[in-house]
């Protein structure tokens, strides 16, 4: 007992200070990519080398517009091959861990935002994703200029989930790295429960599901049943390239190619796997828990 107490003292206090302060991430951590559209000559070198077809050339939208590059964070596995391949230095990784969107379109960098619409969320998210990544949040402390990346839940939903949210995780055909980095949020380093968020064992007790993996055909039924077993209102969060788009397994006959082929998704968190900070940040932004000073 004495020994246990003594080592408790040695091991010290290790919970990071987020969201008051951003943690230091490794220098080589890629973070969100940024497209320097002005530099891009649309030569296609990046597109040819991308293992997940995350890069595409968009043309004719709006009508008559120049062709331009688009990078889909929902497919990207952050291998940085495009960055190396680009002769113009038009793709750079910013080191920012803040990524995510409420709508899939919000994950596409460089897509031309549509102008005419009365509904704001989808389009604003798409716009914001671009802006936020361009500001390159880096590893400094949060600053007031930073654009919110993920639209928070509406007031009614915040009232239900804002102070306490229980999450059921469903692993569906991935590689177990996304699971590992969800799991780590429960350790003392991140201490998810200090935000009122916790992992629960039963879908009956869950407010949200985190889905990882491309949804293997063998897990399709189990995922659907888990979703149906949850009480409403409920949220679904897709963590990792696999769950968003199929990731590296996109197009294989034994997988569904992403969780939204099976159930509706409310939040997309990109990465392969996403850094635990990316997941934590996205959850907190969804719940409007990241302080925004201005």
């Amino acid at each position: 007992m004495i020994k246990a107490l003594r080592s408790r003292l040695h091991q010290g206090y290790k919970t990071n200070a987020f969201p008051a302060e951003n943690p230091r991430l490794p220098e080589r951590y890629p973070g969100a990519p940024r497209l320097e559209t002005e530099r891009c000559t649309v030569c296609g070198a990046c597109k040819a080398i991308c293992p997940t077809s995350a890069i595409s050339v968009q043309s004719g939208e709006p009508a008559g517009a120049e062709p331009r590059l688009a990078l889909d964070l929902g497919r990207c596995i952050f291998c940085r091959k495009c960055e190396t391949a680009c002769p113009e230095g038009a793709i750079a990784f910013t080191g920012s861990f803040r990524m995510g969107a409420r709508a899939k379109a919000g994950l596409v960098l460089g897509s031309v935002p549509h102008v005419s619409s009365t509904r704001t969320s989808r389009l604003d998210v798409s716009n914001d994703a671009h802006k936020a990544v361009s500001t390159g949040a880096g590893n400094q402390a949060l600053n007031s200029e930073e654009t919110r990346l993920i639209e928070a839940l509406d007031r009614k939903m915040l009232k239900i989930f804002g102070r306490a949210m229980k999450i059921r995780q469903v692993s569906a055909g991935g590689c177990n790295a996304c699971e590992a980095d969800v799991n780590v949020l429960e350790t003392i380093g991140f201490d998810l429960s200090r935000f009122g968020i916790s992992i629960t064992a039963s879908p009956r007790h869950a407010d949200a599901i985190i889905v990882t993996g491309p949804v293997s055909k063998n897990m399709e039924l189990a995922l659907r049943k888990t979703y149906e077993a949850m009480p409403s209102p409920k949220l679904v969060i897709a963590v990792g390239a696999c769950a968003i788009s199929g990731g590296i397994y996109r197009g294989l006959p034994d997988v569904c190619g992403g969780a939204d082929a099976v159930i509706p998704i409310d939040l997309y968190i990109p990465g392969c796997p996403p850094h635990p900070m990316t997941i934590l940040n996205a959850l907190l932004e969804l719940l409007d828990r990241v302080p925004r000073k201005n």
Partner: protein
Amino acid sequence: MKLFTNGSAMSVEDIPVVDFEFFARSIAEAVKSGASIVALFAVPDYGKGAARTAAELTALPTNAATEKRARLFAFLGLPTKGMIGGIAADIGSAFPSLTPKIPQAHMFEREIFENTGIVPVGHPWLKPVRKIFDYDFYSLEGGQTHEVAVGPVHAGVIEPGHFRFQCYGEEVEHLEIALGYQHRGIEKALAGGPDIRTIHFMETSAGDTTIGHATAYAMLIEALTSTQPDARAEAVRGIALELERMANHIGDLGALAGDVGYLPTKSFCGRLRGEVLNLTAEICGNRFGRGIVQPGGVGFDIDEKMATSIAARLQKIVKDTDEAVGLLWDSPSVLARFERTGMLKKETALELGLVGPAARACGIERDVRSDYPSGIYKYAAIPVATYPSGDVYARAMVRMLEYQRSASAILDVLAALPAGNTGKPASRALPARSVALSLVEGWRGKICHCAITDNRGAFLYYKIVDPSFHNWPGLAYALRGQQISDFPLCNKSFNLSYCGFDL
């Protein structure tokens, strides 16, 4: 049998094709004298496939009855010789099962049946491997017996699998494990490669074993293209592989503590595992080591400054972990739960062909790093960690010894990083009609990759054998006669991969 060393390539014609009886006898004899099956698979339509020239194809017999449908390849690890032996036989739509005499063939034969429809006649347990919807469980009948079904969705953040317990009261008489929920079809997708996706399929075969699988793949490509990676690149790979082992072993020790309700070690180790992953992220930016291993070398270098900082951080981690894990051995309530739980006899482990820490915890002194050394292990001998008791305690003990030995190996390598560069990418153009095989001691045990190329030098067949493929039946055996409430603890003490098995 054709003998070769770990990480060799040869013409596919060099693997002797013998008649089936001789094939079966050779394997049985080798296994009797301590060999283990590292891979056993059937390449369907081998005679018609691209592995033959067009001229040979027209000369093939057309009589369906005598037609050989597939070529059966067996590769055996011969630890006493430090060599791998390869042998093959052509088979029709059925062959006499090897399993009754060689139990460790049993999962391989089930896989052959599932993938090709070729029947291993006389197989005692011919059930699906990854086809979950066809699974038919054994059940126990009687007044006091009952059945418990768990999964595929489990209570924690864990991969999916289905466990079916046949219980007599609280005691488990029989456990059946049905897997396949994580099946993505990786092996099928590899055929026709290598291409831009191949390395990523390797890195995600089992995400917690990114370095292990990527290294096995890189060794295989290097063997096929006769590329020798620089000593420095091999040093970086070795460091990454040992960091991977450390992170997982430390995480497992914490999780074992958690499963018996001993929270100090659980929470300390949970954090410390993360600290090790962060060291890997210092090297490549990704906590699982994505991008480090590339055929031909490594994608990232460790410079002087990084080496010093990693070494310093590692020493601190080891000190903290030793303290955290030490608490376990001082706590009688922990020991009472670890000792004599989930016992596996050495003979059973040998018969089933168990690998890695699970086997070493039964006193079996087998480790690819010393049996078939490659890369840094040719120079840096890491003592094999074994423990004789075969219970949860032994599996915990082996993990502790291993993370400690990995740490000192890493520190040694960091202190004397060889000069040179990180290598350049190996060519993707592979020789035609060749076969290559590589073994790596991943943190769960022996990883085997084997590739056969076709006439154009593309993969005709690519076989991945994750250590979990050997070890899942070990868990099922360890549960026999246990309280069902001990399942989580036993399961964690093996901590096997679902995705690595399911592929």
